[in-house]
């Protein structure tokens, strides 16, 4: 039996999780390398740690959260 183990997981209202090593660009085009087995890429663009999620999406009004 094999299990589903996607490279990317979309979290409704929150970040996109990515597994493995990647370079992710912040909004200024500066690449940031991943440092952990799974990273959370911010999709609401309100994080203080872009390109990474810092949980800020949770305090946004529902219409500003990513789908």
């Amino acid at each position: 039996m094999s299990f589903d183990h996607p490279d990317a997981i979309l979290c409704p209202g929150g970040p996109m999780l990515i597994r493995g090593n990647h370079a992710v660009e912040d909004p200024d085009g500066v690449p940031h390398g991943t440092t952990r087995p799974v990273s959370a890429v911010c999709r609401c663009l309100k994080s203080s740690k872009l390109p990474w999620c810092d949980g800020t999406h949770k305090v946004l009004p529902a219409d500003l959260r990513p789908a």
Partner: protein
Amino acid sequence: MGRGYKQVMKIPRPRGALTEVLFESLLTGSDVPSAPAGTDDADAALALWVLYELHHHGFDDVDDEREWDPDLLRLRAQLERDLEARLRERWAGPPSTGLFTETFFDWVAEQDGVSLAAHVHRDADRDQVLELLRVRSIYHLQESDPTAWVVPRLGVRSKAALMELQYDEYGNGDPNRLHHHLYALGMEASGLDASYGAYIDEAPLEVLEQNNAMSLFGLHRRFRGAALGHLAAFEATSSLPSRRMMQGLERLEFPAELVDYYAEHVEADAVHEQLAVRTICGSLLEEEPELEESVWFGAFTCLDLEDRFGRLMLDRWLSAGSAAERKDVA
């Protein structure tokens, strides 16, 4: 560096009749007591904490053989039954809103426990933060160790998922990034003793209960759901408060090593909260759907114990502080 840090712990000061006799037994091999009805809560909690520590770090002045002493295990079981009864009494049962994985973050957002991080962010003074660092060290210097007990009790999917998170807690193989070691570095840089248990005599009942609940859930297979629910609630209430902690520590000019501990948790726990809810609890509940109630119980217990601890500290600080400080604490 030896064993990693100064991992030398001595038996703490007793807090009542039970710990008096129990600690005597641990130190000398004299008879193990039972906990008589009416034992003081803090006395019972400290006894249980010490009994759990025999399975974790151990004590320099206690023979390692005592970890599996049947008389101590009997006392531990008695104290655990009392703790479980107390925790269950505080719980109103699972919310009726729907599936754990779909409703969990909304449920967390609705809980309105007090926030120590908000106080540290704006109002706390240096002494209050140092006090918080000391009493919280009982947790932060071991972090997710009790959750590691759960691993062999899980199915294939939830086991892999938990290890994916735990690997990050343990520094991804780099001891310099291991989370409880980062806290030790922060304590040392702040002039505190970073050896495990150094401040146990200062730890209030609420802190002992937080740590005992984690060990209770971790050490009993029947609580594997509660252990993972507790983990999910812990992770889901960490990244935003860690950011406020960082800002408060910077305001008070605490050293960079300590700020780094919280900076790491802003980023790591934004990942961990998603993993804990979606991949860890999600797969656990697909493998063992009957554990859903237990998962909620663990999650509630985590937030409830943190709220009790937060209220204790704020009451203590605000009653000592000025009326002007009193107005804005939520």
